[in-house]
């Protein structure tokens, strides 16, 4: 039978938790104690805020630019495939976050700034979800060509950020050989004159039905985007059949 966690035990567990060093099984006991102990809740806040400075001691490393695009594409894909494939249970550190008391050592200004930052962040991520009512986002849609009539896509262009997001549904899963996917769905920028230029590869969302990619740059430089299945990644020209073509969205007449 498990011994009850005392405040002294909990204090040690909180310090371990703050640096991510809890052993398996200890987290649950700690959270149970925290839920009924104001004193330990105060300690938790202090340890977490101290550990919060530890990443800053590291020499910064810039992530590859593609990571940002992949993240954006996945968010857009998830928005398009609303609510599927999302985790149900919150992990320990988020349960602890919720168990912590409010208002310890933070200024009103800081709290307001933090709220504003989150609101901005969420709005920024969620633009396509509300694109019909967002005047800053231009959208055009199309459905599949002869090889794959079930594919339908949407191209959303935000002039303010010069960023387009293509979201496609109805594409079959990529073939898998030896546990690895083969090839990918490429998005090609179709200029008014000249040949297509590789824009990005579509990334799958967890729902398994939605694919998305972020296209950086001025949408005025192309008239449409086309999607092909490329048996091999890296080709500078399309080699697979064109599955979908979406005309570039244009500003509505003023």
């Amino acid at each position, binding site marked *: 039978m498990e011994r009850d966690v005392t405040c002294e035990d909990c204090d040690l567990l909180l310090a371990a938790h703050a640096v991510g060093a809890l052993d398996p099984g200890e987290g649950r006991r700690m959270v149970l104690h925290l839920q009924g102990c104001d004193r330990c809740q105060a300690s938790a806040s202090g340890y977490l805020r101290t550990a919060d400075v530890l990443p800053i001691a590291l020499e910064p490393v810039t992530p590859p630019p593609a990571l940002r695009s992949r993240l954006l594409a996945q968010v857009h894909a998830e928005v398009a495939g609303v609510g599927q494939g999302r985790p149900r249970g919150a992990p320990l550190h988020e349960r602890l976050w919720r168990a912590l008391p409010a208002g310890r050592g933070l200024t009103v200004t800081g709290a307001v700034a*933090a709220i504003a930052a989150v609101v901005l962040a969420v709005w920024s991520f969620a633009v396509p979800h509300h694109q019909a009512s967002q005047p800053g986002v231009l959208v055009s849609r199309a459905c599949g060509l002869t090889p794959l009539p079930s594919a339908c896509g949407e191209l959303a262009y935000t002039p303010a950020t010069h960023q387009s997001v293509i979201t496609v549904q109805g594409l079959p899963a990529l073939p898998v050989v030896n546990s690895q996917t083969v090839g990918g769905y490429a998005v090609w920028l179709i200029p008014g004159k000249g040949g297509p230029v590789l824009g990005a590869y579509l990334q799958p969302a967890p729902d398994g039905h939605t694919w998305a990619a972020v296209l950086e740059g001025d949408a005025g430089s192309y008239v449409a985007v086309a999607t092909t299945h490329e048996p091999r990644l890296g080709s500078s020209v399309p080699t697979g059949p064109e599955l979908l073509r979406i005309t570039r969205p244009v500003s509505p007449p003023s």
Partner: protein
Amino acid sequence: MLYDRYGRLAYTLALRVLGDAAAAEDVVQEAFLAVWRRAASYRPERGSLRTWVCSIVHHRAIDRLRGRSGRARLDLSLDKAPPDVALSDTWETVAADLERDHIRRALGELPDEQRRTIELAYYAGYSQSEISSLMSVPLGTVKGRTRMALRRLRSSLERQGLEWSVT
């Protein structure tokens, strides 16, 4: 967007814990998606956005390291442990960022065994039981060192006048 503000810090942390660029990218991507999915659960009065984001990145990196959703750690020998942050080349350089300089100084003021305990836990992802084996000290000693290190670190930072950032 939130990623533009904290992406570099998150990636730096994930890379430090995992030691693998591809795995670090995966963790950062998963973490920011989690932040986006759970944005409604954020409570600014409970801590800064930076704390929240780094906490998610750190725990996911450790989960991955311990094999809950990725590869398992196989080697616990001290020789293979990641290099000591305080003794690395970067530690010796003059920090351009005053905050970083303060934090490094505070870490450097910790007794060696406490600093090493924090580094093995936070930057290398070892559990307290694993640290106990690595350092050949009782588990209770590791627990005590961890707590004392965080308390001293906080006192040191406060002495240096470092404000706790909320953003």
